[in-house]
Every structure is written in C-alpha cells, then in structure tokens.
C-alpha cells in the first residue's frame, strides 16, 4: 500500500519543480482577488492594467514590462506568500493590486524589507500607506469621500443619520470620518451599525436602521456588495419611508449600478470616479475599456488599476529604467497627471493620492443608470493623515 503510492508520486513531485523563469526585464507582480467574493474587483483591475499596457506599449525607457498576475482570493495569508514568492523567486520590481485592506497590510512589511515599491490599486484604508515607506496608492481613501458627503449632508437638510458599514478597517475609517465631520457640522448620528464582511445579510440591520427613523442612511460596503444592499434597502421600503441613501460611491458601484433598478435614482454619493465623468480622457478610457472587455463598464477599481500602471510607467521614465526602489518611490512622489477621473497627484509627504471628490446623483443616461456628477471638491488629501499633523 505504502510503496505503491509513494515511489511514483515522489518522481512526479521532483518533476514538478523543474519549472522556472528569469529575464532582465522590469517585472510587475499584480496580486488580485481573481476568485471568491471579491473577484469582480480583480477582474476590473486586471482588465484596466492590461488595457493600459496595450495602449502604451509594453516597453518603457528601453525596458520591457512583464506582467505577472496572481490570484490571492482576497485572503491575506495568500497575499503575503504570493508577494514573498514574487519578490524572492520572480524578482519582481513592483508589487501591485491588493483588492482588500487586510491583503495590502499583510504585504506591507515585505515591501520595506525588499525595498520594492508596492502600488495599492484598490484597498482604501488610510493607514495602509503608513505601513511602509515603499507604498504608494492610486485608488482612494474612504475618509476622502466620507468627509465630503458629511459636509454635503449637513448642508442639505439632513440632521439625523444612521451609519452602516462593513465590519473591517475601511468600514471603520468611513464611519469614523463621516461621524466626526457630521457631528461637528451640527448633525446627529443616531446609531452606528456594522455588518460582517463575508456573507452579509443586510435585512436585519436595515430594519434596525429603519426603526431609528433617520433622515438618511450613510452606508459603506465593499465593491461588489452594493447591489444586494440596494435591493434590500428598497425591499425594506426605506426609500418610501423618506430615508435617503448617502455614502462613499462604493455602494453605487458602476459595475453593478445598472442592474439595481430604477429605485436607486436620486441616491447621492461622494466618490472619485464615475464612468460618465465628463472629460475627453475618460470618454476615451471608457470606450476602449468597453471594447476590450465585452462591453463591461469600468468602475472605480478599474481606474485605480489604470492609474497605478501609469504611475509605474512614468516612474520608470523618470529613473531612465532604473529599478532601484528608493529612486522609483522618489520619482513617484509629487507626480501629477490627468486621469480618467480628473486631475490627480501623489502627495509627496504621505505617498497617498490627492484627487477631486465629486458629489454625484444616480440618474438615467441613455437608458442606463449612472452616477452623474453635480459638484466637485478639488484636490482632496486623505483627511485622516491631514488631521494627524
């Protein structure tokens, strides 16, 4: 029994190890959740990164860019191991992606140890960039939009709010930033509710929210969960009870928005990207993205990936192809460009993104639902870090 199984299996194992790669190029390791509950985030970012490389060519400053895509299933243990392997075995010059905050936090120490730039293309908790001097972010922080929507709510007759967030770091950030600003502006937060990150069931918490009879419900759920949430919100009749839905734009995710039904029309959110952002850059981006991806609408995750790749390309141009981690980070600091979402830059002090936050309302445009921007707050820095100073 033992022998029959052992011997040939050993041979198979030995054979499996004889695979390897190594080239003198610039390698970008892209770690994303491509399977599991956050898979849509991974798909959006991968598509955007590949689109960028297809548009701009795969050679920068004389170096050929090689992209290695890995799936971590949004499980931080996996992220860490994959990042370690990419750095040690594949000798990647950048690690990028990171669908959720815990994944980015798990990989942060590796960036420091290996002096490899880590580009956060999705995760949105403030503290991430503080975990290593080699982390740069091209997505957003939740505090950025939460603070803006708090101001907007206070100015637009909303007095009493219930907050409802996913129970993990970005949710806590969103809740805290919103509540502090909103209370300072004279509003009251009647209840602070949380739902688990995995397999959330919104109906009980929505019932609680309804029982508080607030003017508005502030909500953050990660990309991909907004659809179920809005469905439940409507089913529970919160819209009919006069409770407005506000929050960072994750809940009216472009990826899902069109399937949510007409009841979401009128939802006001603050966010850094909408697929109908009126600029030629964005129009070109959306058209190219849709064409390359079977008419999939890009969402805010896609734009984070697209800009992240731009940042890598431009940094390499600045360093003339040098892949020294410190030089690259130095090149990225203070970089500014026109993104599909509008003008953005990298804060030289915090390495976090500085961008416009738009206040948008869900409307029907050409038969489809979109977040239509109606007000802009220019060049918003991450408020959490700004406050620490």
């Amino acid at each position, binding site marked *: 029994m033992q022998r029959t*199984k052992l011997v*040939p299996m050993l041979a198979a194992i030995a054979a499996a190890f004889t695979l390897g790669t190594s080239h003198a190029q610039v390698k970008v390791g892209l770690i994303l959740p491509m399977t599991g509950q956050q898979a849509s985030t991974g798909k959006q970012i991968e598509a955007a990164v590949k689109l960028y490389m297809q548009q701009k060519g795969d050679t920068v400053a004389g170096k050929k860019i090689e992209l290695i895509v890995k799936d971590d299933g949004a499980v931080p243990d996996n992220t*860490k191991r994959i990042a370690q392997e990419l750095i040690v075995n594949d000798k990647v010059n950048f690690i990028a992606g990171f669908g959720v905050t815990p994944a980015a936090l798990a990989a942060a120490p590796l960036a420091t140890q290996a002096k490899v730039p880590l580009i956060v293309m999705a995760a949105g908790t403030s503290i991430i960039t503080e975990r290593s001097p080699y982390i740069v972010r091209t997505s957003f922080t939740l505090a950025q939009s939460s603070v803006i929507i708090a101001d907007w709510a206070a100015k637009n007759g909303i007095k009493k709010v219930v907050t409802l967030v996913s129970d993990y770091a970005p949710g806590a950030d969103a809740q805290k930033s919103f509540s502090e600003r909103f209370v300072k502006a004279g509003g009251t937060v009647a209840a602070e509710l949380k739902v688990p990150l995995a397999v959330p069931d919104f109906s009980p918490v929505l019932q609680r929210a309804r029982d508080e009879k607030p003017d508005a419900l502030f909500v953050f759920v990660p990309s991909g969960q907004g659809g179920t949430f809005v469905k439940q919100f409507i089913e529970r009749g919160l819209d009919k009870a006069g409770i407005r839905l506000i929050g960072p734009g994750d809940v009216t995710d472009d990826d899902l928005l069109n399937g949510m039904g007409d009841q979401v029309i009128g939802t006001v959110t603050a966010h850094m990207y909408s697929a109908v952002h009126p600029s030629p850059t964005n129009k070109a981006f959306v058209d190219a993205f849709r064409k390359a991806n079977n008419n999939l609408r890009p969402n805010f995750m896609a734009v984070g990936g697209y800009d992240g790749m731009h940042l890598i390309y431009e940094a390499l141009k600045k360093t003339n192809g040098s892949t020294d981690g410190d030089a690259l980070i130095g090149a990225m600091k203070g970089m500014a460009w026109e993104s599909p979402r509008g003008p953005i830059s990298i804060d030289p002090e915090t390495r976090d993104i500085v961008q416009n936050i738009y206040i948008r309302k869900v409307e029907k445009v050409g038969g489809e639902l979109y977040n239509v921007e109606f007000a802009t707050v220019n060049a918003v820095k991450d408020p959490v870090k700004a406050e620490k100073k």
Partner: protein
Amino acid sequence: MSTAPGIVAIALADRLAQRARWQPVEIVFWAAAAASVFLLPGKHIILAEIAILALFALSLDLILGYAGIISLGHAAFFGFGAYCAGLLAQHHLIDEPVLALAVSGLAAAALGFATSFLVLRGSDLTRLMVTLGVALMLREIANRFDALTGGADGLQGITIAPVLGRFAFDITGHAAYVYALAVTFLLFLAARRLVHSPFGLSLRSVKGNPLRAAAIGISVNARLVAIYTVAAGYAGIAGALLTQISAFCSLDVFSFDRSADLLLVLIIGGTGYLYGGLIGAVLFKLMQDWLATMTPQYWQFWIGLVLVAIVLVGRQRMAGWLYCARGLVPDMLRRR
C-alpha cells in the same frame, strides 16, 4: 516454559515490530524532503506552506484514517493554534518560537479535549456539521473580539523572534522551511510511533467495529477522546507554524474553505497510512500553484476537473497504474 498465550504474544509483538519497521521507500521520501532544503532554495516559500499543510493533513489523518471520525471543522484547532502563537508573539508573552509553538499546540489540544465529547455520538453527517459548527463559532468569536484579534483585518504587527535565538525568519523563507520541515518531521515520527503502538492498534479496532472493540474491553470513548485531543494539538501546532513563518494571522485560519481543502488533500493522498496527508499536501498545493499561475481566474475549474477525474477513474485503479509504473523506478536506482 513459555505458555501458549506467551507464544501468541511474542508472535504478535513480532508482527507489530515488522509493521513498524521503516520501509526503504519511506527513507527515500524523507531523504527527498531533506534534499529539497539544499536543492530547491528558490521554492522554500511554497515548500514551507506545503510542510504546514502536510502536518495539518497528518493531524486529520490521525482522526479520520485511524479513528474514523470525519471532520469538516479541523480548522478550528488550526486557527486556535494560529491565534495563540500570534497573541503570544504580539504581546511578547513568549518570544521563543519553539516554546510558543509547544504552548499553542497544548492550547489547541485542550480545546480538542473539550470539544471531543461533541463528536463521540452521531452519524457522519452529524459529526461533519458539529465540527464545522465549532470552527465557524470560533471564527465568529474571533471576529467579535476584534480588540484582541484585529477582527477581519487580522493580527497586525507581529514580530517573531529568531528560532532558538539564532535562526531569524527572513524574506527568502529558508529558515521558515527548515523550521517547518523539522517540526513536521518530528511530529510525524511521534505520530508514527503512536499509530504502531498498542494504543494505535486499539484505535483501528475501534474504527473497524466499535461494538466489538468495546466487547473485548477497549474503552472506546476514552480512545476517541485521546486521539482527538492529540490530533487537535497537531493541528494547533500547524496553525502556530503558519503564524510564525508569515508573522501574520487572519480570520481565514478558521475558514470553512481551509477545512474543506484539508479534507480534499487527505482524500487525494489516501487515509490511514500517515503519508496520505503528506503526499496529498504536496500534490494539491503544487497543482493549485501551477494552475493558478497558468490561469489566475479559472484555476478552480481545472482543480475541480482533477477531483472529478480522480473519483471517476477511481483511486484504486490509479494506484494500479502506479503499481505498474513502479517497476521502472527501482530498476533505474539499481542500475547506477
């Protein structure tokens, strides 16, 4: 002088000794594992993870293969050990990794002892669900006490001291692999001894027919509790190893997926001969890694296909093919 029962006892002891004797192929297996330390320095990161999974699968084999208890919640102990090790390191209660490992293992064993009484009764389905329930409850508890555990964000900012004060874990994963492999090997030796001891034999008889075992004077429940406790300790050590080499620990250690994957690993490798978990771990992890590199988005499809194929073709038949192929390998060895 020797009476008939005496002869029987001697003959029996002889058989047992024979069974417990090391087969050449086993030595080859461990020699290959040791050789991988020197020959495959570039693969140490994934090898360390394989070693941990192998230890974890070995632990499940102890209860499934030797005591017939099917569990879909073995991650409960893995996770408990993982969080123990993480908290011990985070609060600098025990800095020495080896000691922390032992303590975490004991803690998980204690939990195993406490919950073992839940799996003494019931059908396969009942046991499956009770064990699953325990793991999921622990996950909810860990999530609930996020002040201690970090909730869904995981335990952050753990630093692990060098092993025995000398071998520091670094980014290359060398120390991690040697450490994980050494721990796995030592625990394997202990497990091997255990299952070949009279205790192990009595377990097999319990698995074969609990009623008859009870009739010949084996206290069935005590045996089951004992092996469940030991297996839980093993799983806890595996979990603690993961925390120590990754300096990180998240709620995922308790997840259903982890328990389910573990069951797959063990079924692929085969139960009841200790090596099943080890071989299954190597095959499963390498296959997963390879497929996920080929197609990051759809690797699950191919894993699924392999599992389906394994069942349809039948493990017996596959073993048969391997048996035919086996003739070639010793020949090649002998020719040198």
